[in-house]
């Protein structure tokens, strides 16, 4: 019983990590087709925003909200100055966002040093048999699914979501129907940035606060979004569930490094045999 709970916990924790890693990228890369190599730095901004404001005395939830807000502002400035000029130019977006990534991570190093004192993990832990479980990480599992459900309704069921998907599919046609395409792009990009910031804010109580912390998320984020397919909000849950279970299973029996290799092998197989990803598979099944 304890072993079963432990397995369920480990798998769910891995899935929620993949989901939360990917949510911001699902919007910026999955929807807007900007290959955002600075996704990890967006997460870092959210994390540092949370830590700095928490150290100033704000309660953790408020500090997390500030972390998200700072990342939205950061995303807004980047979109206005750089990103808006590279929509529809995916290769250029690789170079531009890679440059942003380097500048931001080095700036954090110069401003804050190699590390700053992090935050204590909120809530406590409980014991089952020989295993100890963090209550906060269980909360993160629920939060990750809640965020994804909210995103699904925002982008697939709301008027803004319809406009955003239409604008991204055919910007000139949208403009010909009176849609302010630039405004929709800016708002959508800021939502993606804010979600990445939220990931940083949520995970920073469980991590060491270093300028490169975003790098821990970048592989998980890209593999989840790529295997999710063209409709990330439909394909992300099955993609994360499959990859998370696969990685945890191998890690459980072998080692974390072998688990990561197994994850990447699974991704290669999915790309090979499911080129339209999990969302393509779901759409085909309908």
């Amino acid at each position: 019983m304890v072993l079963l709970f432990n397995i369920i916990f480990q798998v769910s924790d891995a899935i929620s990590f993949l989901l939360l890693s990917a949510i911001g990228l699902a919007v910026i890369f999955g929807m807007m087709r900007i290959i955002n190599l600075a996704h990890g730095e967006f997460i870092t901004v959210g994390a540092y925003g949370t830590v700095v404001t928490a150290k100033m005395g704000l309660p953790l939830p408020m500090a997390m909200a500030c972390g998200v807000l700072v990342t939205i502002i950061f995303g807004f400035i980047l979109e206005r100055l750089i990103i808006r000029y590279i929509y529809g130019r995916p290769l250029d977006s690789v170079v531009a966002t890679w440059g942003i990534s380097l500048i931001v991570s080095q700036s954090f190093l110069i401003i804050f040093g190699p590390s700053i004192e992090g935050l204590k993990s909120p809530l406590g832990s409980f014991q089952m048999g020989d295993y100890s479980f963090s209550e906060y990480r269980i909360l993160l599992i629920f939060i990750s699914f809640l965020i994804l459900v909210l995103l699904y309704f925002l982008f697939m069921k709301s008027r803004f979501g319809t406009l955003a998907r239409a604008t991204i599919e055919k910007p000139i046609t949208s403009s010909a129907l009176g849609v302010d395409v630039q405004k929709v792009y800016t708002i959508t990009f800021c939502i993606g940035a804010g979600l990445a910031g939220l990931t940083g804010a949520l995970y920073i109580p469980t991590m060491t606060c270093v300028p490169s912390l975003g790098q821990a998320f970048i592989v998980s984020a890209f593999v989840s979004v790529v295997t999710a397919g063209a409709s990330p909000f439909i394909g992300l849950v099955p993609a994360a569930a499959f990859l998370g279970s696969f990685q945890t299973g191998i890690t459980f029996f072998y080692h974390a490094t072998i688990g990561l290799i197994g994850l990447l092998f699974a991704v290669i197989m999915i790309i090979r045999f499911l080129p339209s990803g999990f969302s393509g598979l779901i759409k085909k099944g309908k």
Partner: protein
Amino acid sequence: MSEVILNINKIKKTFGGFTAVKDVDLKVNKGEIRFIIGPNGAGKSTLFKLIIGYLKADYGDVIFKEENLNKFELHQRIKKGIGLKFQAPSVFNEMTVLQNLEIAANQTNLNDYNDFIDRFGILEEKNILAGDLSHGKKQWLDIALASISNPDLVLLDEPTAGLSFDETKKTGEIIKYLNKQGTTFLIVEHDMEILKQIATAVSVLHLGALFVEGSPQSVLKNKDVAKIYLGAS
């Protein structure tokens, strides 16, 4: 005297050394169905793109309802009461017919629009993906998108491209119906059948300049038009 709804004033567009549109003056009166015709390379599509702001003119003005549109972007021009359909059907393939119409109508509840949608022969398909419609129905959906917000002027670029004879006839009936409801049309077209069916005025472009304009009957009888447009000797 008829009220002028669109006034193109001495507009010019060059690409490098090539003049695509040469000092064109064109007026569209309220209530008209005006066709712009001309042989290939006459400058019809360029003029269309200049009117909607997709291309920037070297000089000249586009005046709509007495307001100069030069400084406005495409979406801002649309908001002023213009509907627009490009040559190829530009529907959102991954969305349902209804979702397409919701975007164009700028509202979510289209329950009162069933009669309107039925006019375009797409009521039964309103809940299927636009990408699954036939080419003809995509063209009609596209015209519906251009006209659902009840604009004063609708610009159509070759609305019958790729349509059969019967589909072309129905397209003409749709446009005529919308015109009776008060919408003015400016249509770039090759097809002479629909022109004969619904045009109230015709402007002929040739080598980027306005060649002749008048009633459909007078233009179609004009021997010089036949020479340049049909290549007759």
